[in-house]
């Protein structure tokens, strides 16, 4: 390409146009900044502990329900633990569960969508009917059953099943195995249109194997719906995690999560209403930011779509 040609008609890559559209979307940009701040604060939790001389884990029964002051910026909870640092550690858990489960669900969904869309036929029917079935299920009661099962009966060694982090792995796993449906449908739809394109036909004619075609030729062309759906689902996952933890079936105390910090809040509503407010507000703001960001990505990737 000659320099003269580019000065006459500047060529903008798809990627550049995408970033420009995203940058113009103020709610999405504000959300991205907000999420970065939340993630940074969560990572800095130990620094806050050190700087303020407080502890998220140490109980202090002489200092229950303390009101906010210079050391305990948000006061203390029913066990005298510092609320602010517990919120920050809880944020680590919520963000970790949200991102990892959403990514896991995206991987499962992408695989199912690619196979269904590319292979077609009875496999497609079977996979899509299964997807429809999973979508129709009342998921929360099913998740509660999954969260309540005894891992040792599945042959998981006791040392792992009852370790402190077991509840974290378990919740990531169960959310991923039920959360893949949206991605699967979107990827299937995109695969159906991509698989008829010339470069796929050419690869087929050259005798390239179907796994390579799916991963090397189709997958790169169906990334945008995956990114949008995954970003939007991080919010949903954080909500699910908080509900399960709140019900006592998710992240187990003493590991703090935004959901399990609210478990006792209902009984303590009259005594310390502030304890019920902070974790919920943190979930609310974070989920809303992920939703705005996902929405912004969707608009930027597909400007002709209905939203704007």
């Amino acid at each position, binding site marked *: 390409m000659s320099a003269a040609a580019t000065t006459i008609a500047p060529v903008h890559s798809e990627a550049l146009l995408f970033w420009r559209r995203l940058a113009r979307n103020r709610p999405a940009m504000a959300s991205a900044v907000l999420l970065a701040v939340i993630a940074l604060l969560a990572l800095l939790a130990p620094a806050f502990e050190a700087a303020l001389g407080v502890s998220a884990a140490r109980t202090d029964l002489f200092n229950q329900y303390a009101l906010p002051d210079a050391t305990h910026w948000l006061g203390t909870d029913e066990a005298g633990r510092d609320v602010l640092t517990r919120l920050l550690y809880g944020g680590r858990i919520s963000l970790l569960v949200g991102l990892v489960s959403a990514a896991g669900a995206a991987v499962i969904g992408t695989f199912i969508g690619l196979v269904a869309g590319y292979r077609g036929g009875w496999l497609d029917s079977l996979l899509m*009917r299964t997807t429809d*079935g999973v*979508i*129709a*299920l*009342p*998921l*929360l*009661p*099913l998740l*509660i*059953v*999954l969260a*309540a*099962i*005894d891992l040792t*009966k*599945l042959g998981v060694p006791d040392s792992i099943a009852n370790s402190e982090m077991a509840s974290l792995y378990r919740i990531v796993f169960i959310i991923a195995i039920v959360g893949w449906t949206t991605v699967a449908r979107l990827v299937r739809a995109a695969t159906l249109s991509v698989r008829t394109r010339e470069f796929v036909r050419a690869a087929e004619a050259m005798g390239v194997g179907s796994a390579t075609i799916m991963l090397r030729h189709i997958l790169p062309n169906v990334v945008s719906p995956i990114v949008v759906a995954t970003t939007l689902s991080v*919010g949903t996952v954080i*909500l699910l995690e*908080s*509900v399960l933890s*709140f*019900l006592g079936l998710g992240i187990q105390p003493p590991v703090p999560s935004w*959901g399990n910090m*609210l478990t006792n*809040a*209902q009984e303590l*509503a*009259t005594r310390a*209403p502030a304890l*019920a*407010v902070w*974790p*919920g507000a943190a*979930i*609310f703001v974070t*989920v*809303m930011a992920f*939703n*705005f960001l996902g*929405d912004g990505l969707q608009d930027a990737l597909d400007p002709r779509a*209905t*939203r*704007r």
Partner: protein
Amino acid sequence: MAAFLTRRLFGMAVVLAVMSFVVFMLIGLMPGDPIDIMIASNPDLTPADGARLKELYGLDLPLWERYTNWLGAALSGDLGFSRTYNRPVLDILLPRLGNTVILLGLSSLLAIFIAIPLGIIAATRPQSLLDGAINLFCFAGISVPPFWLALVFILLFAVSLGWLPAGGMGNPSEGLFSRLEFLVLPVVTLTIASLASYTRFARAAMIEVLRQDYIRTARAKGLGAGRTVFGHGLRNAMLPLTTIIALDFGSLFSGALITETMFGYLGMGKLIYDSILGNDFNLALVGLLLATFVVLVGNFLADIAYAVLDPRISFRSLEAA
């Protein structure tokens, strides 16, 4: 029509059968065996009694054999007993289902009747301040954790202001009105989440319809804004909306479980939750199946409504889909 019905009923039966199998197997992995719990709570029972009881209830059989026994009994109409209530499970589930249907029915009607006007207002004034405000409300509604919303409502309206009861069902003998008081907070909590998502769908569906050629034709021939938007726009936008709302039944039930648990409302969601935690496995199993069945019937009715609303769609084309 007959082929369509057969196909759908067969599909529902398959989903229920798979669901019953999966849940039965999962329940086999639950901590605590009912008989072990019985022995632990009664010092007079010896391990030999325990073994005899297990044999009596068939709990010594392998899991898959217990499942086929259960399935055989269930298909002949015997869904078994609840361990904690000592009564047939359906006797306990059906009144609770009634309560849940009241809760779900009221809040979905409320959500639909508020969401459609809001969606139309937003869609007819895209990018306006009002559209922005409605959009913000929708994002807030889908992002708020429902149990926290319930908590905030309890703090605000029951604890601080004392206007409404914090939970419970009211006394049925005091008549309908006293029960309504107990319904307000659960219904409002449950409505907000679905209202937000329905409004977004309604707005998107209306915007899509309003840019169609027939809308331009209607405007060009001088039809009033009201008749264009309602007669031509809404009528067509109702189609995608019906499907989306029908597909939402499952998550609506999940919402009901949270709301009922938070407000101590004696519905089926709370019953399922309590029975899972209380090791009342048969009740949990049948409850889950009943909930799934209700959701599937909801989806099925929506498909029929879809064909009725859209004269272009016949049952024949639904069969092909």
